[in-house]
C-alpha cells in the first residue's frame, strides 16, 4: 500500500488566485504599451477603452457559462453553434417588429435551456464523453440551422439594437450587462448551495456522490447555465449585427476561445477550482491581444493562425505542470 495520500497543496492556488490580477495588469500593460509604441494614443482615450470593453462582451458572456461547465468537471463544445441558433432565431422571429422582441427572447431562452438539458443528460445519464456529447449536439444544431437558413434571416428592430448600441452615461448597456451577469454568476457560485455542489462535483465527483449530492442534476444544471449564456450571446450578436446568420457562432470561434479564457483565468480544466472574475480577466487578455494585433496591423488570416497557437499555449501553461500521462 502506498503511503497515505496527502491532498495537493492549494498554496499553488496562491498563484492561481492572483491570476486574474496578473492578467488584468498584463492586459492593460500590453494594450497601453502597443498603443504608445504605434503612436495610436487615441486608443487610450475613453472611446478607445470603451471599444476595448465592448470587444469583451460577446466572448465574455459565453465564457461565464463555460466557466460553470468546466468547474463542474465537464466541458461544452456546442456553444458556438448554439450562439448561431440564438442569433438566427431571434432575428427571424422578430422580423424587425418591436412587439416580437419578448417572444423571440423567450424562445431563445427556452431553446437554450433545452439544449443545456440535452447536453447534461447525455453526459450524466448516458455517460457519453463530454467532448463527444457536446460536439455532437453542436453538429446537430448546426445542421438543422444551416438546412433552414443560408443567409441572414429576418432583422432586429431598432429597440433591440439598443442592447448593443445603447448606453447610459458613456457606458454601453452591453458592457454593464456583462459585469452584472458576472456579478450574478459569482454570487451563484459563491453563495448558493448549487454553487457549492458544483465545485464539489468538479473537485471529486465520487466524494460528492458519497456526500449525498445528486451529481447528475448538478451536471445538468451547469450545462443549462452554459447554454443559457450561449443563447444570450446569440441575442447580443443579433442586436449588434442587426440580424442573425448561421455562421456567426463558428466565425467567432466561441467554443475554443471560451474554454481558453476560462483556463487562462485560473479555472482548472479538470474542475473544482476557479471563478468568473478570472475568466473575465482572460477575456480582457484576448480582447487586448486582438486590439494590439489591430494596432500593429496584423491582418485577419495571420490572426487566425495565432489564435490557435494562443489557445494551446494558454492551456499548456497550466497543463504542463501536471504529472499525469495525458492523452
Amino acid at each position, binding site marked *: 500500500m502506498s503511503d497515505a*495520500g496527502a491532498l495537493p497543496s*492549494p498554496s499553488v492556488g496562491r498563484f492561481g488566485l492572483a491570476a486574474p490580477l496578473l492578467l488584468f495588469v498584463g492586459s492593460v500593460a500590453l494594450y497601453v504599451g502597443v498603443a504608445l509604441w504605434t503612436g495610436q494614443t487615441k486608443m487610450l482615450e475613453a472611446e478607445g477603452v470603451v471599444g476595448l470593453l465592448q470587444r469583451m462582451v460577446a466572448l465574455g458572456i459565453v465564457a461565464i457559462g463555460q466557466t460553470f461547465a468546466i468547474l463542474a468537471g465537464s466541458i461544452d463544445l456546442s456553444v458556438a453553434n448554439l450562439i448561431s441558433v440564438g442569433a438566427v432565431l431571434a432575428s427571424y422571429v422578430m422580423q424587425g417588429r418591436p412587439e416580437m422582441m419578448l417572444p423571440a427572447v423567450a424562445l431563445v431562452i427556452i431553446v437554450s435551456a433545452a439544449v443545456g438539458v440535452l447536453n447534461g443528460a447525455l453526459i450524466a445519464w448516458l455517460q457519453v464523453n463530454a467532448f463527444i456529447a457536446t460536439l455532437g449536439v453542436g453538429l446537430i444544431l448546426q445542421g438543422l440551422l444551416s438546412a433552414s437558413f443560408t443567409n441572414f434571416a429576418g432583422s432586429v428592430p431598432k429597440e433591440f439594437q439598443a442592447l448593443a448600441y445603447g448606453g447610459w452615461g458613456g457606458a454601453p448597456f452591453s458592457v454593464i450587462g456583462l459585469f452584472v451577469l458576472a456579478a450574478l454568476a459569482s454570487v451563484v457560485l459563491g453563495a448558493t*448551495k448549487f454553487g457549492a455542489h458544483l465545485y464539489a462535483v468538479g473537485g471529486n465527483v465520487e466524494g460528492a456522490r458519497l456526500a449525498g449530492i445528486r451529481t447528475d442534476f448538478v451536471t445538468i444544471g451547469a450545462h443549462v447555465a452554459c447554454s443559457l449564456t450561449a443563447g444570450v450571446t446569440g441575442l447580443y450578436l443579433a442586436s449588434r449585427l442587426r440580424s442573425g446568420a448561421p455562421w456567426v457562432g463558428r466565425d467567432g470561434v466561441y467554443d475554443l476561445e471560451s474554454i481558453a479564457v476560462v483556463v487562462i483565468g485560473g479555472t482548472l480544466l479538470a474542475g473544482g477550482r476557479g471563478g468568473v472574475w478570472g475568466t473575465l480577466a482572460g477575456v480582457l487578455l484576448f480582447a487586448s491581444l486582438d486590439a494590439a494585433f489591430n494596432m500593429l496591423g496584423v491582418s485577419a488570416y495571420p490572426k487566425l493562425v495565432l489564435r490557435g497557437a494562443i489557445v494551446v499555449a494558454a492551456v499548456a501553461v497550466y497543463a504542463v505542470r501536471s504529472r499525469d500521462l495525458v492523452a
Partner: protein
Amino acid sequence: MTDQPLALEMLNIVKTFPGVRALDDVSFGCARGEVHALCGENGAGKSTLIKVLGGIYPPDAGRIRLDGRDVSFSHPVAARRAGISIIHQELSLLPYRTVAENIYLGLEPSRFGALDRRKMRTDSARLLDRLGSAIAPDVAAGDLSIAHQQIVEIAKALALDAKILVMDEPTAALDGADASRLLDLVRRVSRQGVTIVYISHHLSEIQAVADRVTVLKDGRTVLTAPLAEAPTGRLVRAMVGRDLSDFYPPRSTVAPGSPTLVIRGGTNGRLRGVDLAVRAGEIVGVAGLEGSGKSALGRAIAGDEPFESGTMEIAGKVVAFSNPRSALEAGLGRVAEDRKRESLLMQQSVRDNAALSQRAFANLLRSPNAAPMSTAATDERLKQVDVRAANFDQEIRQLSGGNQQRVIIARLLALDPQVLVFSEPTRGVDVAAKAAIYRIMRDLAGRGRGILMISSDLPEIVGVSDRIVVMREGGVAGELPGGAGEEDVMALAVGHDDRAPQMRAQ
C-alpha cells in the same frame, strides 16, 4: 452497558471475490462509545470488512445490526445516512474548498438555496471545538497539514451525526507528536458517545487507545477480546501464527556472490539516506509498516520516482535512473505492487502482456512476433512460470490475480535482468500461486540473480528472505538474518516508539 443492544454488530459476514474468499464468517460487535481496534496483516480482510460495513460491497451472507436492528445498505450513501462514517487512508477532502465547506459538504445550511455561510462557520467552529481543535473554518483544506486534515475529516463525520466512525490507519502519515494528539482526539470523540472502529498496524497505539480488539487472519476472526486480555504479545501471535505449511522453498545454502545492487545514501522526498546491498544469489526481504518508505524504495530503485541524491551501483557499475526504461536497460526490473494500475494492460491478451517489455525495446517495424518474442517463445516463458489460462489469446483481465502476477513476472524475465525488485509480489494472489512465485524467486536467485522482495506480508518476509532489511520512517531501521522471528521484524518495524511513553502516562 449490559442490557443495551450493541451499537454495531457484524455477524457471520461472508464475502467472496473471483478466486478468493475475502471474508469467511467474520463476526464482531461494539458497544456504544467503545473504541474497537481491528487488526490483521495485509490481506487479512480488514479493508473488505470495512467496505461491507460502509455499503460499498453487499455481503454474500451475514448480517449487520445497528442498535439491535438489522440493516442493509444498497449504496454507500445509505450507510452514511444510517450513521456510519468511514475515514479512508486517502483523505477525501476537496483541497480548494474551505474547512467549513468540506465539513458541510452535502449538508450545507441554506435559506432558499442561498448558503448560510455564517451558520456554516459557527457550526464548524463548534464542531472543531468539540474536537479540541483551533483550526480556522475559512482556511482552504489543502493548506492544512495532514494531521489537521484528519481532524477535519472527523469533524465532517460528526457533522453527519455519525454514530459509528471507522478510521483506517489514521496515523500512517503522521509523526509521533501528531499521532498522539490524534489518539487523544479518538478518546475524546468516543467519550462523546461515538463508537469507533480503529484499524491499525501499530500495536502500541492499540494498547493506548482501544477498549476491545479483534484480530482478523485469512478472512476469519481469530481473536476478539477486551484490551486487558490482549497484550501485544498475544496480538502478534494471533496475527502471525498459522499452520506453518512450509510452502516456502528452502533458503539458499550457498554463500551469496558479489553485490549486484548497492545503494548508498539513497534519498528523495520520502527516503532518507538508505544504504542497501543485494548480492548475487540472495533474496533480500524489505519489511516495514505503512509509511516506512519501503514502497518508495522500490519505486526509487526502478527509476519511477528516482533518488535525488546518493549513489547506486549495479554489478559494480555506477548507475542513475531518471525513468523506468533506463533501469530496464541497465538490467534492473521491478514487478510493481498495484497490478491493475501499474502493470496490467487489461484489455490486451495474455501474450501481449507478456511480450510488452520486449516490444518496448525491439525495433519499431519488426513483427511483434519476431524471434525473441515469438508466440512459441512467449508461450514457453508463460509455461515456465506456470500461468494457467484457457488460452493465451484471452484478455488478461479474465485471469485470476495469481496468474496475472505470473504473466507480469514472465514479462520481466523476458529481458533477463540481473536484479529484480518484487513489490508486494503475492498481494491478491492465492496460495498455490504464492508458492509458485516463491519458487520462481528462489530459482532466479539460484541462477545468480539478485532479488529484492518488498513486502507487507510478514510470514513471506521471514519465510523466503535470506536476509531481512527493516525500514522505518523513510530509513533503514535495521537488518536481520533470514529465519528471524516475525516478532523481531515487527519490533524493528515498530521501533523505539516515542509515542509509547506518552501513552503510558495516561
